[in-house]
């Protein structure tokens, strides 16, 4: 997968790919641009070459044309005697090397009223010799030959198609024929033609001297598109551009041939005439003869230099790619090696090995900074972990101490039930659930003399160790101060004074305390800012115990407390609790409330006190629905059973 490939690999691929694209684009553009520019130059070059050759040929043809033109003009002017005519012809042939032979062919009976044929033909024989023959007769009816007929019918000088002259030279020739006339009463009358034969060998030599590159060449087409000259001998005088096109089934070549013979100049691409090689051709007409010169540039040789250059560039490019590839592999390896090492190292760190050595990276580049950041992180982590260990240790110590404190605190509270097994006049059960390890609530009860039970429930205005200590102090004071003859209010008065003294920590405590005469059922009680207990008495619904007013302990020395007394009948139950019960909150911050407490307590008059306390606790927990407990919860239930209850019940 691409995503899983290494950074070095991705980097190499991206860079190489981009570079390859840029190189190819540049290479392609350069190749095509240079091709186009070369082609343009070649076209100009081809044009120059072609036109130069055309002029060279034209110059010779022009010279060849002059001779018959002059002779025709002369004959038209004045009829010549046979000897004069023949002499003139000999001189003309001898003096004009480009002319192979000359004929002056007359219309039937035009030269000699007795002779149907009169056509002396003077031709070159050897270097400076000329020979004379008379053509025409039944075997050579020259009147219907092109060299005679064309100028006659067109009434103008003309070059014939190249032909094998069977009557005269027996060689392939092109003939320039000029008609001559005689003025008569009826106007100008055609008398015959003067011709000059030009050897094609001479033309072939000239055209084949045009060499382009290694295999480029020039060729000449006749007015009919027949090859007059061509490097391929078998095409000459046999094939035309059209027969080639038909052989090759190439309509494009046929159309090109038509364009060429149309007397236009041009530059065209073609699949080689008879050679099958892709080529470019410049063509131009020879103005006087309606022949066409074509110059062929083989494409391969034309673009050989560019091709060579392109191969060189491609080679350099390829070598460059290899170098670039190696460089990228090297650099990306160098760049990513510390990264890879760092990755391995941080993996170790993540697994908790903070002592591992980070690689040393010189320099201040990204990798260096990242490595140093990792180093810093490692140090910070190490320090943090050390701090954490110390803090945890301290916390653990505190927690352990708090546990001890709680144990101690709990040991303050009477926790053995039933506390006085020999006493059956009353039943008592208390429970305390601290909000934190050590709470500020407390309860206490103890017998005072043979008839009295002292009960107290308190709530220090704070939690934790200070509250626990304050609670211990309060409890100890209560126990120390309480006496059978001392009214509960007096107990609180004294305890308040003690607490107010040196109460630097400004802690307060609410206390409800009562003195039960378990012989008579008289309950004397007082209150210092504590929640009113619930009394379940005489078959009535649970209700708030009527309390005397009294401010919490430890605030003001002046606070005074009053004692109130009720008489309990056997079966009456007093439930004393702290605000941890009624102010317990559910998740929606609603309070548990006294009403709910009283509702829970309804119908519990016959339950054992332990069960009653348990029911309240369960109810509170159910209400809280797992919401965190914010305060200590204390419930203490005291049921008066009457002095004889125990004996009769047990016995």
């Amino acid at each position: 997968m691409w995503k899983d490939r290494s950074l070095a690999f991705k980097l190499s691929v991206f860079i190489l790919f981009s570079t390859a694209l840029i190189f190819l684009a540049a290479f392609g553009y350069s190749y095509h641009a240079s091709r186009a520019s070369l082609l343009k130059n070649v076209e100009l070059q081809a044009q120059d070459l072609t036109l130069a050759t055309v002029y060279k040929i034209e110059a010779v043809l022009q010279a060849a044309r002059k001779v018959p033109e002059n002779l025709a003009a002369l004959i038209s002017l004045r009829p010549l005697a046979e000897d004069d005519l023949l002499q003139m012809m000999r001189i003309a042939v001898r003096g004009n090397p480009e002319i192979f032979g000359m004929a002056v062919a007359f219309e039937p009976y035009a030269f000699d009223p007795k002779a149907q044929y009169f056509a002396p033909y003077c031709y070159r024989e050897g270097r400076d010799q000329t020979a004379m023959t008379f053509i025409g007769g039944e075997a050579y009816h020259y009147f219907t030959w092109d060299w005679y007929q064309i100028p006659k019918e067109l009434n103008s000088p003309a070059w014939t198609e190249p032909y094998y002259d069977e009557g005269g030279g027996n060689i392939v020739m092109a003939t320039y024929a000029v008609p001559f006339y005689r003025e008569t009463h009826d106007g100008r009358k055609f008398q015959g033609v003067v011709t000059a034969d030009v050897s094609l060998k001479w033309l072939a030599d000239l055209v084949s001297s045009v060499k382009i590159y290694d295999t480029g060449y020039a060729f000449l087409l006749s007015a009919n598109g027949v090859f007059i000259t061509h490097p391929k001998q078998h095409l000459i005088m046999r094939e035309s551009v059209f027969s080639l096109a038909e052989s090759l089934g190439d309509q494009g070549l046929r159309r090109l041939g038509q364009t060429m013979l149309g007397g236009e100049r041009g530059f065209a691409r073609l699949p080689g005439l008879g050679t099958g090689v892709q080529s470019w051709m410049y063509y131009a007409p020879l103005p006087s003869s309606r022949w066409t010169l074509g110059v062929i540039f083989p494409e391969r040789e034309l673009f050989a230099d560019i091709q060579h250059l392109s191969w060189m560039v491609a080679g350099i490019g390829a070598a460059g790619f290899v170098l670039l590839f190696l460089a990228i592999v090297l650099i990306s390896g160098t760049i990513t090696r510390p990264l890879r090492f760092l990755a391995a190292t941080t993996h170790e760190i993540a697994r908790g090995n903070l002592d591992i050595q980070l690689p040393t990276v010189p320099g201040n580049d990204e990798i260096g900074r990242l490595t140093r950041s990792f180093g810093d992180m490692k140090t910070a982590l190490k320090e943090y972990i050390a701090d954490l260990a110390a803090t945890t240790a301290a916390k653990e110590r505190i927690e352990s101490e708090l546990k001890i404190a709680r144990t101690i605190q709990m040991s303050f509270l009477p926790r053995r039930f039933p506390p006085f097994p020999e006493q059956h006049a009353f039943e008592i059960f208390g429970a305390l659930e601290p909000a934190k390890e050590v709470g500020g609530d407390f309860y206490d009860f103890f017998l005072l003399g043979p008839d009295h039970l002292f009960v107290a429930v308190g709530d220090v205005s704070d939690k934790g160790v200070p509250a626990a200590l304050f609670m211990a102090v309060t409890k100890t004071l209560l126990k120390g101060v309480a006496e059978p003859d001392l009214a509960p209010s007096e107990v609180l008065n004294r305890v308040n004074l003690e607490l107010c003294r040196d109460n630097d920590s400004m802690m307060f405590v609410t206390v409800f305390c009562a003195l039960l005469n378990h012989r008579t059922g008289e309950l004397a009680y007082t209150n210092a800012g504590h929640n009113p207990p619930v009394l379940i008495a005489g078959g009535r619904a649970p209700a708030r115990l009527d309390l005397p007013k009294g401010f919490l302990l430890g605030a003001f020395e002046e606070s005074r407390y009053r004692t109130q007394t009720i008489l309990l009948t056997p079966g009456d139950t007093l439930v004393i609790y702290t605000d941890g019960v009624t102010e317990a909150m559910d998740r929606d911050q609603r309070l548990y409330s006294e009403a709910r407490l009283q509702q829970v307590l309804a119908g519990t008059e016959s339950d054992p006190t332990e069960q009653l306390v348990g029911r309240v606790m369960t109810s509170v927990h159910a209400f809280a629905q797992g919401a965190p407990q914010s305060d200590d919860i204390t419930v203490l239930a005291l049921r008066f059973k009457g002095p004889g209850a125990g004996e009769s019940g047990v016995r």
Partner: protein
Amino acid sequence: MTRIKVRRMIWIGVAALLLCGVAARAPAADGVLKRAVFIPQWIPQAQHAGYYMALEKGFYRKRGIELEVLRGGPNAPASELLQDGRADFGSLFLAKAIQLHAGDRTVVQLAQLVQRSSIMLVAKKKNGILSVPDMEGKKVGLWGAEFQLQAETLFKRLRIRVEPVAQSTTVNLFLRDGVEVASAMWYNEYHTILNSGLDPDDLSTFFFFDYGLNFPEDGIYCLETTYRRDPDLCCRFVRASLEGWRYAFEHQEETLDLVMRYVDAAGIASNRIHQRWMLERMRDLMMISCPTACRTRACSPGTTRWWAASCKTPA
């Protein structure tokens, strides 16, 4: 020439062919080859491919004939060579043969090979000639006597006056507009014109054939005396020639190789593609094969009708 004479000549030809079945049983029984000379009616080209091929393949020798094929052309007219005895057999146009028959040394037809007229007139559309009447007053290139017959008849029938110009062996005068109309053989000059750069669409073509002037052309002839002297030889010559023609049409490339050898030997400026066209047209003209013939380029509605009619007649 009278109709009777023509009829007589044809009857002789038919009789010759019938006799073949009887006479050709024992060719060269004595093992001695009979010498004979054949003159084609024109220069070496695919028009005579069957004779060349028969000679090359030994079809004449097989039938006891030691044949010599002369080089034809304007300087060796077949009619002359037949009449002065330089050739025993020759190919001629039917029209020419009829003309010769009117003379002293009558010729007889041994076989009619070309079944329909292939001579035509060609004009450039750009010169405004789209129909025969458009030729009124124009210069028309015409060949010698036997080739003119149809043109003259046609012009006379349509009451058109043209300016005849003797046409050479080339069509250059026509190509250069020295004449507006040229004579052409479908298998020869017409293709030469096409391969001088003119497209079929540029040309108006007039087959005499389409104007009810269907003169059968190439046939094999000999002097009546020759036939009477040795009908068996005549018969064997015709059989070998026909076998040569059949072979030529069935082996086109081999035939073209041979034709080009004759062409080259005669120093004639021609090319293979031209000879191919000629050979294919000769097949169209000689072998009555309706579907292939009608696919060729210069096939007119009249041609199609004629072929359709010919096909109905069992050969």
